[in-house]
Every structure is written in C-alpha cells, then in structure tokens.
C-alpha cells in the first residue's frame, strides 16, 4: 500500500501541527499554506484546510487580517496569536518527547 494511504491517520493528526508551523513564519495567505505543504507528506486541499483554519481561529490559536490584492477582492492573511505560538511550542516539545519515547521503546 501507498505510504500516503497507510499513514493517513498519522498525517491527519499532525496536519494541525504542520499548518501552525507554516503560519508561524509570518502572515500567510491560505494559498501560500497549501503551496508550502505541496510536495510534503502534509499535502492537502482547500476542502480540508479551510475547516481546519476556521477551527483554529475559533480556538483563538490564529487570527487573520484583510489585505488588498491587485487582482480581485481582499484576502485573508493568517498569523499566529500568542496562544497559537504557545500551542506550537508545546506541540514541538510534545512531538520530541513522543519521538524519543518511540525510539526508547524500540531499544
């Protein structure tokens, strides 16, 4: 079976992590997030990303501001809130712990 398919659950669980990481770079547009994830294990689509962004915003982990664009209507640029930043730090630490645990379990 395809790697993408077999580790679907893992990727799903980590999508939030990866999205928060991408947004931590600064103000990003949703298309930028998709572009950043494109080609990685976390490649995703609008249909998945938008509900997730909406959820994260409701949890006040991220916020957006409207910015004018040369073409078309204003766009939403996402950035992390302080809560979001803290969450990302916690997640990173937790992730390191988990990988260490997995390594140790294998010994």
């Amino acid at each position, binding site marked *: 079976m395809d790697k993408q398919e077999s580790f679907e659950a893992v990727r799903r669980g980590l999508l939030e992590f990866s999205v928060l990481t991408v947004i931590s770079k600064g103000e990003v547009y*949703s*298309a930028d997030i998709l572009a950043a994830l494109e080609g990685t294990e976390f490649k*995703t689509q*609008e249909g998945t990303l938008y509900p997730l962004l909406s*959820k994260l915003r409701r949890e006040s982990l991220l916020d957006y501001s409207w910015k004018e664009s040369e073409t*078309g*209507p204003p766009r939403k640029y996402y950035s992390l809130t302080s809560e979001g930043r803290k969450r990302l730090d916690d997640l990173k630490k937790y992730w390191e712990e988990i990988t260490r645990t997995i390594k140790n379990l294998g010994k």
Partner: protein
Amino acid sequence: MNKVITINLNGRAYQIEESGFDALRTYLDEASTRLASDPGKSEIIADLEQAIAEKCDKVLNPHKSVVLTDEITKIIAEMGPVEGDSQKESHEQSASGGAHTHKRLFLMRQGAVFAGVCAGLAAYFDIDVTIVRIIFIAGTVLTSGLGILIYIALAILVPYADTAEAMAQARGEILNAHTLVQRAKERFEETFERVSGHKMDWGESYKDKDDWKRRKREMKQQWKAGLRAQRYHSNPGFGLLRAVLALVWILALISLITTGAIFGWVIPAGIPLWVSIIALFVIYHAVTGPIKGAQYSMNWSGTSGQNYQYGWTHSPWDGLVDGLTVLFLIIAFIWAYQHVPQVYTFIHHPIAETKVLFGELKTWWQLHK
C-alpha cells in the same frame, strides 16, 4: 454551443457553462451539508468561494471570459471534498442512507388478489409476491386461521399506494413528495438567507435577479400546491360517503343472507342466493367506483406539478371500507360453503357445477324473455 450562467463568487461575476455550474452548486451544497454543525460554516463557505474564484481567474484571460465545465471539474478536484465533523458526517450519511431506503408499507392494487396486502408486503420486502402468498397461506394453515385475521388487520390499517410517489415509497425508492417539497423549501430559505444576509454571496448575479425571483415564486407556488393537495386528501367527505355506502351494503348483504330479501325487496324466484350475493358485490363496486374516481381526480387536480404529489390519496376510511370488503368476502364465502349446497358442490365439482350453472342461467333467461 453551451448555455452560460453568470454567478457571483465573492462579489465578482463569473460566467460558467451550465453543467459546470451544476457541478459547482452540487459541490457547495455538499460542503454546506457537511459543515452543517460547524459554527464557522458561512465563513468557510465564503473562503471556499474565494478559492474557487481565484482558480477561475487563473483559467480566464482577456480573450477567454467563460469558465468551461472541464475547468470547473478540475477546480473541484483540486479543492477536494470538504471535511466536516467526521463523526457527524458518517452519521449523516447513514441518516441519508436511511432516507433512501425509507419504506412504507402500502397495499398494492397492482397484482392484488384481494386487498393487495401480499403484493404490498412483497414490494416492501422486495421479494416475489408468490413467495409472500405461500408464506401467508402456510402461516394461516399452521396457525389455524390467524393469518386471515392478520390479513384483515393489515387491509384495514394500511393505506393504498395510489400515487406514483406512494408506489415508489412502497418499494423504498426516493420519490417522496414531502421530502421534495421540504427540500425545495429548505433550499429556498437557505438561498434567501445567503442572498440577503452574508456579504459573500453564492447567488446569481444582479443580471439574473429577476430570474431568481421568478424561480423562488415558482417554488413557493409548488409548495403551496402541495399543501392544498394535502388539504384535499384529508377531506373526509368522500371517505365518509364510501364508508356509509359500505355499511349499507353490509346490511343489505346480511338481510339478503338471513331473509332472502334486500331491505324487504324479495329477489325474483329462481335466482340462486349466491348469484344475488355476487350481484350485490357488482352493484356495490359499480356505485363506489365513480366515487373513488372522483376522489382521485380531485386529488390530482389539487396538485399542479406531477412531482409534487402528496401521499395520502386515501383517507383512513377507505382502508376500513376495503378491509371490510375483504372481511365480508371471506365470511360470505365460508357461510356459503357451509350453508349453500350449490357452493359446496361447486367447490368440490367445479366443472360439472359450472355447466349446471350455465344451464340454470339459460333456463332463467328463456323463462323471463
């Protein structure tokens, strides 16, 4: 040459081929069902629309002003299915699956022997009517007659499937007027809300506003027609009349069997009792037939569109009438078998007795000519 529809995505007009428009609408409708429980629903939908709009921009240029169906299909594939609450989603799927197979037990005139109970059961369980009949008869024999009581109970309680929609429902297909009207109503409300409420609309552009209004009006009219039809259906006048007729008929039958006369009117000598019983049946159906017809035609005229038929063509009275008909058929048959020698011998020697019957009819006809 394809028809083009102008839509408003995020405040900008886009021209899309008609079938592409349908695909897009389906996608967004699906998205909105999946996000039904999501508090950020309208925002997500608006974001999705903007993303679609941007993808449309990419395929358009000064020399190409229309988004083709293929391009829309591609855009939808790129967007990917909208993920709602996964638990909710599976729940909704099973619920809608339930709606698809939502069946109701109806009596079926088509292929009916008596009241259509077996035919109705066969449609409901999707098995051959002969198998149902065999089970029913075997069950009746094994339970020494309980099956007949069940049959009568079903014949009385279960309505007839007379509209196309009821027929479909009896088989578990989706052609449910109620859901159709409901759906139309919901859609109308939802669209209205979106058109009037949110800044980022998914509605036809201003150019099509009149057309949109007209469609809303039509939907409303059809919905009203549905309600009107329902009112006709629940009108018990005809049903009551038929119930009274059935009662008169039963009394006539009793009086005929017990006294040999119908309400004091002595049947001509020479006509066997059972012939007059059959004649009474024929007369009863001849009288009630036009009433039934009138009832149906009234129901039909009460609805404008063929699709918006309401289910209850029969009032509960009709079920009672038909049930009683069957009951008395059975009772009359049993009684005749036990008390009328002709019937008894006819059952046992049908061919010989048929010949005798024709002989009798011939002599009776010649006598009265």
